[in-house]
């Protein structure tokens, strides 16, 4: 039986893949790796399909012991990684053998590290995905974060992974400085005054301690709305106060001073005005911010958002071809 031993679960480590889609209407968010790029690239390094199960560690990574020959790769946050207490390179496929122990030191930049193992973390598929959604306890490993001294099933390592395959520096995300989040303003942004919108876009927001897979609450500015928040259901319109579906990445500002960016495990709908949506590519970037980090919203149009997406797909293909060599 092939398994991965979890000696220490770390602070908040879960099994994730590229997400659970098609169940949004029943209130089921997609979950999945918060930093998709890093998760997909980690899988590529060890020869897995892009959507194989990986581990997402938060702040403090897990300690993992291997029980057979595997390739392992760590991507995402900038964090020192060790194999049997010796430093090893991140963004690199590393050959491990039975008894080898992978460990993490303190994170230097970013927030979430991804661990891919050849064969993938082979937890049962629930509603089409291996992603963990802890709020209702489904998916992943028993629907929860990992704890010390347990084991995870691994799939058969039959992929084309190659020991020493490495992602060049220029294809790794830059996690330093203020996180610039390209945002399509819209939906209910008309409820903000012009000054309110300018202040939303002009503020260096700070990530508060309320920042997790559900969403990020930010602080640092004040936004003026054109009118007081209308009570739900009062009168005939406008629609922005009636419950509606929230897309992942959407930004709402209850109270006017603390924007919340909804992320992979967020509620799927509700009655708050949404003033914009962080483009899909840059959700990877906010996922790599932590409490105290600075975040800015840059208004972009839809074409820019789509170009950014094409650009990322091209980066992923460049990684794929570099690794294949």
């Amino acid at each position, binding site marked *: 039986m092939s398994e991965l031993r979890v000696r220490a679960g770390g602070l908040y480590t879960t099994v994730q893949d590229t997400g659970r*889609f*098609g*169940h*949004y*209407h*029943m*209130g*089921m968010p997609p979950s999945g790796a918060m930093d998709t790029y890093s998760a997909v690239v980690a899988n590529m390094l060890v020869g897995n399909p892009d959507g194989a199960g990986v581990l997402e560690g938060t702040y403090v990574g897990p300690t993992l012991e291997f029980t057979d020959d595997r390739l392992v790769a760590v991507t995402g946050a900038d964090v020192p990684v060790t194999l049997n207490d010796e430093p090893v390179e991140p963004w690199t496929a590393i050959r491990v053998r039975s008894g080898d122990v992978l460990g993490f030191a303190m994170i230097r930049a970013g927030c979430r590290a991804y661990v891919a193992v050849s064969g993938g973390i082979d937890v049962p598929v629930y509603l089409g995905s291996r992603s963990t959604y802890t*709020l*209702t*306890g*489904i998916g992943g490993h028993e*629907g929860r974060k990992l704890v010390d001294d347990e084991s995870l099933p691994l799939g058969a390592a039959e992929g084309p992974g190659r020991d020493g395959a490495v992602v060049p520096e220029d294809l790794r995300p830059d996690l330093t400085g203020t996180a610039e989040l390209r*945002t*399509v303003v*819209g*939906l209910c942004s008309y409820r903000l005054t012009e000054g309110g919108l300018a202040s939303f876009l002009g503020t260096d927001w700070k990530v508060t301690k309320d920042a997790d897979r559900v969403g990020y609450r930010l602080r640092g500015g004040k936004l003026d709305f054109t009118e007081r*928040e209308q*009570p*739900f*259901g*009062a009168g005939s319109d406008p*629609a922005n106060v*009636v*419950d*509606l*579906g*929230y*897309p*992942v*990445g*959407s930004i709402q500002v*209850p109270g006017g001073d603390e924007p919340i960016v909804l992320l992979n495990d967020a*509620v*799927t*709908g*509700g*009655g708050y005005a*949404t003033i*914009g*949506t*962080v*483009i*899909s590519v840059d959700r990877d970037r906010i996922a790599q911010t932590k409490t105290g980090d600075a975040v800015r919203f840059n208004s972009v149009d*839809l074409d820019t*958002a*789509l170009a*950014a*997406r094409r650009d990322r*797909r091209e980066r992923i293909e460049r990684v794929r071809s570099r690794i294949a060599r």
Partner: protein
Amino acid sequence: METTTLRVLPCGDTALLVESAGLDDVLALHAALDADRPAGVVDLVPAARTLLLRFDPDRTDVAAVERAVREACPRDVTRSGGELVEIPVVYDGPDLADVAHHTGLSERDVIAEHTGGEWTVAFGGFAPGFGYLTGGSPRLEVPRRPESRTRVPTGSVALAGTFSGVYPRSSPGGWQLIGRTDLVTWDVDRDPPALLRPGVRVRFVETTASADSGGSASTGGAA
């Protein structure tokens, strides 16, 4: 069906929000698009006056999705005839007095109105297992709380707008809490896990005993 009232709003690069005149229009549009799903659309999320379409931008684009929405022929949906679920409720919610105040009813009358008619799940959303119940007494229309609570207990029975709902698990929430139930509305070991799915009819039944109350007698009616 009037389609000129549709307003299509972008939500980033992977979703569109279609605003419609009301719930019936939304459900009619949803039924049409669900029956003949446009290529690349991965999720259709109906809500009170909107339909959220999430799509895979690698397989389609905003213009194609918007075209599909505008060309869809909304079909009338009957929101009745579904399975009937009885929900036992202890009416001791912290907002019962506020609801009485808003509606001009006595607390007893609020309970009578809530238990007096049949509700129907119009759509789901918010959290897994949450169903938006419609068709109840129009006298129960109330605004949401001015401030939402950071933690609403599992099983809370609530009102907002013309809707009623049951919180399937502890979560933040801004609805008016009038009572609580022991009935498990979301259970991952059940297939399907959600009890309150679109089309299901609901009748609330007042009960006085609850496993939560600490009393010895429990007729809780947990699933």
